[in-house]
């Protein structure tokens, strides 16, 4: 079969020289089932025009568009309880940091000779101050007694050492008292 005429029409089509009738001839030709292999690549071009014409909007298109435009889209977003408290925790942490820094600064600026002991662990043995007074007095007496005893012994040993040095011209170290 000679397809020279079709080829010429195609040539003129690309040159934009075809008339509407000639373009209709081409469309009709390419709608055939059997098309030669060397012209097959042009089929889609002419068939597409035909099939595209057949594509139409569905009956429910308007309804779908209107539904999308008119109804606001509300999506439920679940927020856990802990997230609600997050600002509170952050605020608490900030307050704790500020308080700690403040206390530290206060301590460093006002460095009184304060004991740094943790007295919270102390459990008072006595509830009566008079009884506690007696116990403290006795303890103070014991410490006082030890200091006096030390001073007394140290003085005695010093005298003994001095005497020994004088007599023997040799040094004798006191063994009973360790001088700190």
């Amino acid at each position, binding site marked *: 079969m000679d397809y020279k005429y079709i080829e010429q029409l195609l040539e003129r089509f690309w040159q934009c020289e075809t008339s509407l009738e000639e373009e209709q001839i081409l469309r009709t030709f390419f709608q055939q089932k059997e098309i030669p292999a060397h012209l097959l690549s042009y089929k889609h071009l002419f068939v597409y025009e035909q099939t595209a014409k057949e594509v139409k909007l569905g009956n429910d298109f308007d309804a779908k568009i209107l539904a999308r435009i008119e109804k606001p889209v509300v999506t439920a977003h679940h927020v856990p309880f802990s997230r609600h408290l997050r600002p509170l925790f952050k605020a*608490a942490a900030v307050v704790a940091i500020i308080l*700690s820094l403040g206390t530290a600064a206060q301590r460093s600026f006002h460095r009184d000779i304060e004991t740094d002991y943790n007295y919270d662990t102390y459990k*008072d043995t006595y509830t009566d101050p008079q009884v506690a007074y007696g116990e*403290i007095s006795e303890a103070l007496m014991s410490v006082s007694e030890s*200091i006096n005893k*030390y001073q007394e012994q140290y003085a005695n040993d010093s005298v003994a050492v001095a005497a020994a040095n004088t007599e023997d011209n040799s040094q004798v170290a006191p063994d009973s008292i*360790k001088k700190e």
Partner: protein
Amino acid sequence: MKRALTIGCTIVFTAATAMAQDFVSRYMWENKHDTLLHCVSVSPKMMEEVLKTDAKDEVQEEMRNIMMDLKSMQIVSSQTKGDFYFNKAEKIIEKNINRFEPFISFNDSNENCRIMVRKKEGVIIELVMFSHKNDHFRIINFTGCMNEHFIDNLAKTMIPKQEDKD
């Protein structure tokens, strides 16, 4: 949230651990299961109450003046195993040699005694006396602000017990 909690806990823990332990607290912590040791405590609050009591005579007045420099007191005692507990106390001192400095120590035929002090800016803030006598053991632990004047007053004004003097 976890980060905030961690920061908070860290701050609280740091603040808690920053507080130091006195000698007796440490000693009792190391011997917490020992039922032979008896501990007596006078907290700063009770010390304040004690200072509010009226002095009956001059001696008590002097005593009160000395107590004004004290903040707390703890006493640990045992009627037995004096030597054993004394050695334990010495070990704690050895472990904390930078914390305490020796003040006096003596030992005679029946008594072994040491007084250690902890100083801060030249002032004694803790005084520890531990002694071992006739198998009895005792630690006396004072905290407060004690200067040289306090020690002088303590040595001069306190009347030693007559029975121990003999």
